[in-house]
């Protein structure tokens, strides 16, 4: 039996051979096995892309056509526990264009051993969330005569994140230049201006400023949501900051990802971007109930990352690198491309599709690809 399999090694990929091996009935004659493998090879050869088949265009059609059926804006989940996420066509465009700033950056933070079973999940989540001083305030009163501001702190909230009043004061004092900070009770802070001429005005101004002072958590993460994925717990966030999150001890650095391709590129490198782009596109399509052969998506992801950095399918991205002036000019901003080409004396070798359509020459795909090899009589 193994000798038969040996024969087909190299003709059929190992993965397929293994699959055949696994699914074989217990008793099988050599003749039957041979027939099966023959059939498999035929199927495999038929599935291989022929030379001269224009995979790029078929890919564009295969993604573009179902794209027309996508609902423009999918439901905004009017629930408590779901976040508002860009999906559907806007998100797909965002990914394929490789936008620098995306509408809803998100992370999926996976956790290490004890935490992934739900232990202290809320605490971990709170630790990730960026908090401003505003959240710890219960009440603010201003004494007009003394020009002082008294802040009553929300101790419940402080206990949840395990932050002590001393630490709060330490963080606050850094950004309170020109004011004196004093602890006057268990949960009361008093702030007085050092200014001589208009202390009251300063205090009023401070009342607004004080709310936005950063206290702790991961900068950029505006929302956290602990979710159960299968057996384990993980945290979905709105707002993305991979660098900071990966430094945390609780976080499983091998699986945590962001949906921001540029951030993924910076932290994990270009291979990760390729993988993440594929996942994100599939996620959008699945949500819409659209199934596209994954090879088309792989091709797009390859095209976007083959330069070694992220490039969108746009005139600033991969179209920029097309070798043909005419092809670039026919896409967007024709004059710019023609003028630039004229200035440096660019040469168009006319070896892709669009230029040849423009010149009414056979396009070099399919039947237009093979040339005639013959001796011409002199």
């Amino acid at each position, binding site marked *: 039996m193994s000798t038969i399999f040996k024969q087909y090694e190299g003709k059929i990929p190992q993965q397929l051979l293994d699959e055949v091996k696994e699914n074989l009935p217990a008793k099988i004659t050599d003749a039957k096995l041979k027939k099966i493998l023959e059939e498999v090879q035929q199927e495999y050869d038929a599935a291989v892309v022929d030379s001269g088949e*224009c995979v790029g*265009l078929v890919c564009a*059609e295969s993604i573009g056509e179902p794209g027309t059926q996508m609902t423009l804006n999918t439901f905004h989940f009017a629930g408590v526990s779901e976040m508002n996420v860009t999906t559907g066509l806007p998100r797909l465009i965002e990914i394929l264009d490789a936008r620098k700033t995306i509408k809803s950056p998100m992370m999926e933070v996976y956790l290490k051993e004890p935490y992934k079973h739900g232990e202290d999940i809320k605490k971990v989540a709170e630790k990730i969330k960026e908090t401003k001083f505003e959240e710890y305030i219960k009440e603010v009163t201003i004494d007009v005569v003394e020009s002082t501001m008294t802040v009553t702190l929300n101790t419940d909230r402080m206990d949840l994140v395990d932050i002590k009043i001393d630490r709060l004061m330490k963080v606050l004092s850094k950004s309170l230049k020109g004011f004196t900070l004093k602890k006057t009770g268990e949960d009361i802070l008093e702030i007085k201006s050092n200014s001589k001429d208009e202390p009251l005005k300063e205090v009023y101004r401070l009342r607004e400023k004080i709310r936005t002072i950063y206290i702790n958590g991961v900068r950029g993460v505006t929302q956290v949501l602990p979710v159960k994925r299968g057996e384990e717990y993980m945290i979905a966030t709105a707002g993305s900051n991979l660098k900071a999150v990966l430094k945390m001890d609780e976080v499983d650095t091998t699986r945590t990802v962001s949906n921001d391709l540029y951030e993924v590129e910076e932290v994990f490198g270009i291979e990760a971007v390729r993988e993440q782009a594929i996942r994100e596109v599939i996620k959008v399509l699945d949500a819409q109930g659209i199934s596209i052969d994954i090879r088309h998506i792989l091709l797009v992801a390859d095209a976007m990352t083959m330069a070694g950095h992220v490039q969108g399918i746009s005139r600033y991205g991969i179209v920029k690198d097309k070798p043909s002036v005419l092809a670039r000019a026919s896409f967007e901003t024709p004059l710019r491309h023609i003028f630039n080409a*004229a200035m440096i004396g660019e040469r168009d070798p006319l070896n892709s599709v669009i230029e040849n*359509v423009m010149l009414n020459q056979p*396009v070099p*795909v399919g*039947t*237009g690809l093979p*040339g005639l090899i013959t001796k011409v009589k002199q």
Partner: protein
Amino acid sequence: MTDVYMNSKFIGSVPDGAEFRQQIIEERRLGKLPEQLNVFYSQNRDELFLETAAGRGSRPLIVVKEGKPTLTERHAEQLQKGEIAWSDLVKQGVIEFLDAAEEENAFVALEPEDLTPEHTHLEVSSVDLVGITTGLVPFAHHNQGARLMQGSKNQKQAIGFYAANYYTRLDMDVNLLHYPQEPIVRTLINEVINTEEHPFGQNVVVGVMAYKGYNMEDAIIMNKASIERGLARATYYRPVNAEELRYSGGLVDEVGIPDKDTKGYRTEHDYRLLEEDGLIYPEAKVKEGDVVIGKTSPPRFLSAMDEYNLATNYRRESSMSLKHGEEGVVDFVLMTENEEGNKLVQVRLRDQRIPTIGDKFTSRHGQKGVISLVVPENDMPFSASGIKPDIIFNPHGLPSRMTVSHMIELVAGKTGAMSGRTVDATIFNAEKEEDIRHELLRMGFRENGIELMYNGETGEPLMTEIFIGNQYYLRLKHMVKNKVHSRARGPIQLLTRQPTEGKAKEGGLRLGEMEKDTFVAHGASLLLKERFDSDHVVVPVCEDCGLVAVYDARRDQYHCQQCGEHAEVSPIEMSYAFKLLLDELKSLTIYPKLQLTGKY
């Protein structure tokens, strides 16, 4: 304090906005303030708006006081006797007109039964909830809103009897239905808009079934005998106009048969129908290309030389003729003068339009479709009593669209037709479906409108029961005869040498960018090249400088304008559009050099 705005302009303030509003309304009802004055008080913003501006839409409502309408039985009696008029009711403050803003302050009841002490107004009729065309949809309260919109939109395009004096009119592009009928199933609005004098459809027998797969995707099947009996037959009228325009220098157009030496003279055959005055005679049968009004115009530009040349044979031909694909009969010829005192000639063409495959029809429920097959009557399915449908409608149009009213009309129409009466299907006030069904049952039919039917070709009973009934069907003005278009060869554009666009210019049908992509995806590259050969040219190109060379036909020689007489020139195939691009680049002082290489 409430700020008061008059027509969006601040005019002052009052202590209590709500009270002030009440005061204004009362004064208006007493007739001390104009009827068209509307007032709107916004509690959130504490602002009061008075509106008297022109162009606001407003609608009448019955005033309600303490949960009772101010309109009484007595008013109704007086109205009926003609003792009082609508305007009296408005003067009495029984009816008032509210605009969109004031409606925000009102609490309107739809029916008198719904009234509570909180209500401020009552609808004059519940039909008011929808507009006129939507009110024409029978049993509209059974439908989804979007379907009502479509139902009313379609009805606007129906062919009917639009004016009794149509024979003396010269309307552009109108259709006239030959045997219009009033609907059996009708609404109150049908009386209001006087459908009796301007009917716009016909009551036909509709069978809801599939027919050999010919009525897929909203298509309908029509009975050939019904068409021959005049079902949905119409006449299409189109006027052709010509005016003797005056130009500077005392030159004028002239209606008449053009001389043979006129610039642009057609053939004698084209002018054969014209009489001496250059006009066609009535009842002449005309086809495409035939001249209907003969006309000549003075030359466009008068050069200095021409002024000495006094001969008139410089005139241009500018006759009016039938366009590509048109035909008809001359119905009416009119010669008159327009406002500027110019001679005006109008010829009305008439063309009988018998329903054919591709013509558009609709019921009143947004269930539009085109004829896909005309079936001889002997092949139509028939019921036990021998009834054959005029139209076969596909049942698959119903579940997803949920036009329940369509089905109810079918039953109601059947009932009305069998008992010889009309059925009231006004929105919210229609006759009860149950009663209609009972009536149908009493006449010996199945109450749900279903009947056993027989295959018209074999005579065997159909194994499915068929829903069949009567319905008001409308023929819509979109007819294939006005739209069919094809081209093999034809006119091209001057600039690009590509085919012209559009039916009016006998244009080509474009193989667009996405269609091009499908050819490429199939690898059919040489076929694609052929399809794009419409502006194919062979251009001589200089092998040395790569620019387009010149062919000197007199000496049968090529020469390059850059490299001179003895340049090596090769013929190169390309699209004319690309040659144009090269020329345009040159005009931008960009040198597009073609580097030629051997093909082999």
